[in-house]
Structure formats: C-alpha cells, structure tokens
C-alpha cells in the first residue's frame, strides 16, 4: 500500500542523427557506464553480477567495435547500437544454456539504457519512498535504481513473472504483479502480490481485508527461512517426495536443489539445441553422468528427447507441421529417427550403471509405442554389453500427458508414471498453451484434470508403481494441497519453487478433512 506513481519509459521517438554520431555513442556509453557504476556501489548479490556484466559489455570492443563500425558507415548511433545489441541478444537467445539465455535480458536492459541516453530522455525522477510503481514494463536496472527500503511495489501492464525484474523483486521481497492491463491514474494503490492484483484507491474495507492477509503472509514467510533444514516433507503421515525439474547439469547450481529428494525430470532437449547435428553418445553420457554424480544415491529421471511441438530441433524434428503440438513429437518422433534415438539410449544405458537412473518416454499415446521403445532399449543394452561396455537397462517409465494414455493407464507396462501437467492440461481443455486468448481454460487443477490425475494415482497405488507430477502447477505453493488431496506424493518442480512448496506442505492441516 502506498502512493501511486506512473513511470513511462520513452520507447518511441527516433533520434535525429547529429554531426558526430561516434561521439554521441561514446558519450551515451560513458553516461551508462557512470550510472551503472553508481548503482553497483549500492547493490549486492545477483544484481551486482548483472551490473558488473553490463559494465564489462560496455568495455568489450568485440561488442562496441561493430556498432562504431556501422556508425562510421553512416548509420545513426541509436540504430547502430540497437543492431549490435540485438545481434548479441539473438545469439544468447539461441544458446543451449538457460543461464546464457537469461543473460539476454541483461543485454536488452543495457541496450535500452544506452538508447535512452542517446535520445536524451532524462532518467525519470526517483519515486517517493514506499510508492507503488505502475509502468508498462520495468527493466531490471531501473528496478534497482529505486529505493525499496521503506516498502512499495510494482504493478506492470505488461511484463512477465519469469523476467529478471520479477526474480529481483522476489529476492528482495518487493510485491510485484504483472499483466494487469491498463492502469488509470490514482492517488493510492494497494498491491497484493500473493493474490496477484492491484487495487487503486482502495476502500477502508478492502484495506482491512488486506491487512489480515498480510499478517498471515508474514507468518508464512518467516517459516520459509527455516524450512529447508526440516526434512522430509510429510502429509498425513506419508512422505512427500519433492524433486526438481532440470534443463541440464547447470540447473543444479541453484542452492535449493541441494535439498531436493532427487531429479524428477531432466529434460534432454538442451543437448540438441543450438547445433547442426545431434550430440554423439559420449557428449550425452557426460551430461547424464554429471547429474548422476551430483545426485549420489538419489533417483534421477531422465526424459528422452522431447523434440517437436513448441521445441523444434534442427536435424531431428519435422518442419512445416500445421499443428506441431499434435504432430510428430516426443516418442513418436524418436521412433521415426532410430539413429538419433539409439545414440541417446546407448548413452542412457551406460549412464545407468552410475546411479539410480530412471528413464521415461515423452508423449506416449498407445501401449504399442511404449513396448516398441522398451524393446529397442533392451536390445541396445544387450549390444553394449556384448561389446564389453558396462551398461544396464534402467527402470522405464512414461510421461502421462496425452489424455488417451491417462484414460487407459492400466494398459501400459511402464514401471512408473510422470504426469506432465502442462501438456495434459492443454490437451484436455483443447486450449493451445501458446495462445494467451485461451489461457483461462488451461487450468491444471480443473475437475477434468483432477479426474485424470486421480485415475493415474489410483492405478499407481493399486499396483505399487510410482506416480509423480511435473509441470508448473507442481511448483505452485497455493495449489499443492489440491494435488496432495488427489493422492499424489511425488512432485517435481523448478528448484526455485522447492522452498515455498515444502513450506506450504509443512504448514498445511495434516488431518484428513471430516466428510
């Protein structure tokens, strides 16, 4: 709750080229460098890393050189700078590492800072302490310029909960809501980041309701600090296993990952992205071995390549499908690319001797597909052993993300099941995940979804087979109890959600509801 302040970052307005564009660019870089140095002096942690990186970029001739080269060719300073930065952003955007892709946001932030300087748009005056800042979007370095020590919050018409600014806001406990649409002017604003809304000029009654929610939140936050040490998570006397979803070995550097009960989903697409040919067996083996070494005796579920759909992979997936989400993807595609699939299965068979490896196939629709993949894997392992290599057939499971599979789950001879809630929700609701206009239909805890989840869980309980759920909802502390009430006792989420989910489970009422 605080005074409402609108910040409009000048986006439009092309710069009028001057006589000495090189000097203008140098001056803008100098100004950006001075502002960032001042900012760096009063920030720490991950934010300081970002600013140091931006400062180093300004001093990187491999970055600035091409921009000055364009200026020498007669291009305006802002266009030349934008071109150079956009090239770097595109390179980072195509990088297989999540960390490098995320740094693209820092580059975009630096790009905009220098463009502002070139256009002479004055830096917005610092807002009063404790203000609720409204803007279309808030670049991370602008967020850091604001003094948050006496409270305040951020309400963005656009923005994304996954942005760097959102991560900085979470780390500092600054409430922030995104995608709230057009915000009219107001004098006071109340922001409730937990419930995800902003109230302009709230009434006394709204304020009272907010204060009681805030008090409850403060109690919960205090317990989050201690939660990692308290293990394991239990719900109604049963252990709840909390696992992590990872993109590759480097995702494990997140501090919370150390407290995970294992890896519930290791995606393997990162190995195949940003390159012309699929990686060979050795390169894959190294990546799998690194994760198994990290996990020690904890289980690691690796998903075979899930190419296609929204994750096209050069040299593997089909181009030009009209409806790629429903096309040749996941296991369907792997079965059509026997060479690519065989290299992955060989690497997995060899990795299996190094730890508690489980392997699962994505987008399984019929039992035939699973049986075919299983037979292929068994032959692959026999070949490896015949060649004198150490290998074993790991436990084989499947992703449950196609409604047909969920409905006939007992027909699949898999050893375990992992419910892919994101895809299952889009197929159950016939609502494209990539289409914001139908996102209101994509509810992973809709009655239809819960019906399917229960079906798989019940089958697992009856047969003693493991059932886990991965997907964004597994990391949603507000809905974890709904999942546990369906009988799920294994959830796999991004490392950053672990603490909040564990806390929600530990703080939940542990008795069964009286019916």
């Amino acid at each position: 709750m605080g005074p409402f302040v609108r910040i409009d970052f000048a986006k439009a307005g092309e710069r009028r080229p001057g006589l000495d564009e090189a000097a203008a660019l140098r001056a803008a870089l100098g100004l950006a460098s001075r502002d960032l140095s001042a900012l760096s002096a009063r920030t720490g942690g991950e934010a300081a890393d970002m600013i140091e990186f931006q400062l180093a970029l300004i001093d990187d001739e491999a970055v600035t050189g091409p921009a000055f080269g364009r200026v020498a060719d007669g291009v305006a300073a802002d266009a030349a700078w934008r071109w150079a930065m956009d090239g770097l952003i595109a390179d980072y955007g195509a990088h297989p590492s999540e960390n490098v892709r995320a740094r693209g946001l820092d580059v975009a932030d630096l790009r905009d800072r220098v463009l502002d300087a070139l256009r002479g748009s004055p830096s917005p005056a610092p807002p009063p302490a404790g203000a609720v800042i409204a803007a279309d979007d808030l670049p991370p370095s602008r967020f850091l310029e604001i003094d948050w020590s006496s409270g305040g919050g951020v309400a963005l018409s656009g923005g994304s909960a996954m942005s760097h600014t959102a991560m900085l806001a979470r780390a500092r406990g600054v409430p922030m809501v995104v995608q709230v649409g057009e915000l009219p002017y107001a004098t006071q604003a109340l922001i409730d980041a937990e419930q995800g809304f902003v109230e302009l000029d709230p009434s006394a009654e709204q304020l009272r309701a907010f204060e009681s929610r805030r008090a409850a939140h403060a109690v919960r936050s205090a317990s989050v600090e201690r939660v990692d040490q308290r293990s394991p998570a239990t719900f109604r006397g049963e252990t709840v296993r909390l696992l992590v979803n990872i993109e590759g070995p480097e995702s494990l550097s997140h501090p919370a990952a150390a407290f995970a009960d294992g890896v519930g989903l290791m995606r393997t697409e990162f190995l195949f992205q940003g390159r012309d040919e699929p990686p060979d067996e050795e390169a894959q083996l190294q990546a799998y071995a690194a994760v198994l070494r990290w996990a020690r005796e904890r289980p690691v579920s690796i998903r075979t390549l899930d190419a296609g759909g929204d994750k096209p992979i050069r040299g593997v997936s089909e181009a030009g499908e009209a409806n790629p989400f429903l096309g040749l993807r996941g296991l369907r595609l792997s079965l059509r690319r026997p060479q690519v699939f065989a290299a992955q299965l060989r690497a997995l068979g060899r990795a299996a001797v190094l730890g508690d490896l489980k392997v699962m196939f994505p987008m399984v629709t019929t039992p035939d597909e699973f049986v075919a993949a299983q037979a292929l894997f068994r032959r692959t392992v026999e070949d490896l052993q015949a060649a004198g290599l150490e290998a074993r057939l790991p436990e084989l499971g499947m992703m449950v993300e196609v409604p047909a599979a969920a409905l006939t789950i007992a027909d699949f001879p898999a050893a375990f099941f992992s419910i892919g809630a994101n895809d299952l929700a889009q197929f159950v609701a016939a609502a494209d995940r990539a289409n914001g206009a139908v996102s209101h239909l994509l509810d992973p805890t809709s009655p239809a979804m819960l019906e399917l989840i229960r079906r798989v869980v019940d089958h697992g309980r009856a047969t003693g087979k493991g059932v886990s759920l991965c997907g964004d909802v597994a990391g949603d502390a507000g809905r974890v109890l709904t999942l546990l009430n369906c009988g799920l006792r294994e959830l796999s989420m991004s490392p950053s959600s672990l603490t909040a989910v564990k806390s929600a489970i530990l703080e939940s009422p542990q008795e069964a509801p009286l019916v």
Partner: protein
Amino acid sequence: MERKPPFSPKPQAPSSPHSSEDKAEGSVKLVHAVGMHARPAVKLSKLAKRFRSRIAVRVVGASEWIDAKSVAKVMAMRAPCDSTIEFVAAGTDALAAVGALTTLVANDFPDIDG
C-alpha cells in the same frame, strides 16, 4: 565467434622468452563452469584485458577459439565443470598472461581486486 585460431598456437613453450612476439600456452581444469555464468566471465575477461598480448581461450578439443578479452564471448563459452580449458597468448607479456589466467581458474575465481 572466431572460426579459426586468431593466431597459430604452438604446442610447445616459446623458444625465446624475451622476443617481442612471445607465445605461451597453458591449460587448467575447471572447478566450476566458466562460461554460462556472469561472475567468472567478467573476472576472466577483466584479467585478460590487463595484458597487452592477444589471448584466446577454448575448451580443450573445441573447434572455436574465443577472444579472452571479450566478456560477451566468454559468457557464451560452453565450458562445463570438470572440463579443461586452454589459453594461448601472443605478445610481450604472453607468459605472464597465461600464468595469471590459469591461476585465476585453478583458484576458482577468487575476488581479484577485493
């Protein structure tokens, strides 16, 4: 990114350490990933820029040499932990440059300036 070595690295140490075009090379095993993380990338490129020599870096066996003074390129380098990276330097202070850089990596990127 350079597709070829920026200058031809020799497999051996330089024959004359006091010529104006010294060449030096060295390799070191990574404790943590170098590329993909901002802090080590900034430290490595900053240290490289203190030397006059041209300095290139790559993961052993990689096809591309990377300009060690470019933070943008070092950031995008694919160097997972447990891999070995190598430096080659050419210039008047090549030996000192390679020595300093391998020490930085071997010590897992301590804070240089405090």
